[in-house]
């Protein structure tokens, strides 16, 4: 499956946030998006998912234009920047709703085995983030959008998620963004920089310094 996002224009009042965005994600690849704070990364992810309506957008799947929000055709999972799950719901209920296997989860994240009957709001912020990232990453969708999956979680879990992403990408198109640029670079097969409302395909990592996303020498 090939997902293409084109001609996106987003304004908040008269302020232009995105214009001329092009992005391609396909099954078997992780597409990374880098950008400074306020560059519109999260807006772009919300637009792809369908929870934010821009002035213009063109979304195609395998060259077919998709006019409905992607979430309504049940092909996309989206991990937003903020908490995803409702507070007063049990962990086991969330797994049931997402049709995921609890045992499979605790074989990867052993320390969570105590939480099966806990409510979501009894988990710490980081634990909740791990759980939510896992739910979306393993959900039965062909397109996965992850907004800051590496933020607020322990380095050990970051490594586990990198391995999980490498497995899941075999059957899914994954779009990822985070300020932990090294992790995004490690994980991604294709990389875009979002700057001045436009995406630029990064072919050489030094371009990140040229476009002043990173300071000179950051990649050494």
């Amino acid at each position: 499956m090939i997902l293409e996002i084109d001609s996106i224009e987003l304004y908040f009042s008269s302020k232009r946030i995105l214009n001329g965005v092009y992005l391609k994600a396909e099954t078997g690849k992780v597409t990374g998006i880098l950008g400074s704070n306020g560059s519109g990364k999260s807006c772009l992810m919300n637009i792809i998912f369908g929870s934010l309506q821009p002035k213009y957008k063109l979304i195609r799947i395998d060259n077919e234009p998709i006019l409905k929000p992607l979430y309504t055709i049940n092909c996309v999972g989206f991990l937003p920047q903020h908490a995803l799950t409702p507070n007063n719901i049990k962990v086991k209920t969330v797994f049931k709703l997402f049709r995921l296997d609890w045992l499979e989860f605790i074989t990867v994240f052993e320390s969570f085995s105590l939480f099966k009957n806990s409510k979501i709001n009894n988990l710490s912020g980081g634990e909740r983030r791990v759980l939510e990232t896992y739910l979306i990453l393993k959900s039965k969708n062909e397109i996965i959008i992850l907004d800051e999956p590496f933020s607020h979680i322990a380095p050990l879990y970051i490594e586990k998620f990198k391995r999980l992403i490498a497995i899941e990408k075999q059957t899914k198109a994954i779009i990822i963004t985070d300020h932990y640029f090294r992790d995004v670079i490690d994980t991604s097969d294709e990389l875009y920089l979002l700057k001045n409302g436009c995406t630029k395909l990064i072919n050489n990592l030094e371009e990140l310094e040229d476009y002043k996303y990173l300071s000179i020498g950051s990649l050494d």
Partner: protein
Amino acid sequence: MMQRFEAILLFYRPLFIWSFAVNVLIIIVNPHIFTTVITKLLLTIFVWYLINETNRERKLIFYKNLGISTFKLFSAIFLIDIFITIGFLLIMQEFI
């Protein structure tokens, strides 16, 4: 399909107690089905507006991940609520 219905019930659960309080008020003030349906419809629209105008709108992404749009979610809770309310009214009218 069952997962979606269960998710909708989870969304409705914290609203149930408020809805029940409104049902009691309706019984006291004007226990007619037509006015009850209109009242509940207006209350559902009010909750929708309240969620849209606050950052609680973010919470709806959980339901969207399960394929439930905002319109579907609120339509479903309106129907569930009306079903419960009318049942409650019919039972109470036996005692009035």
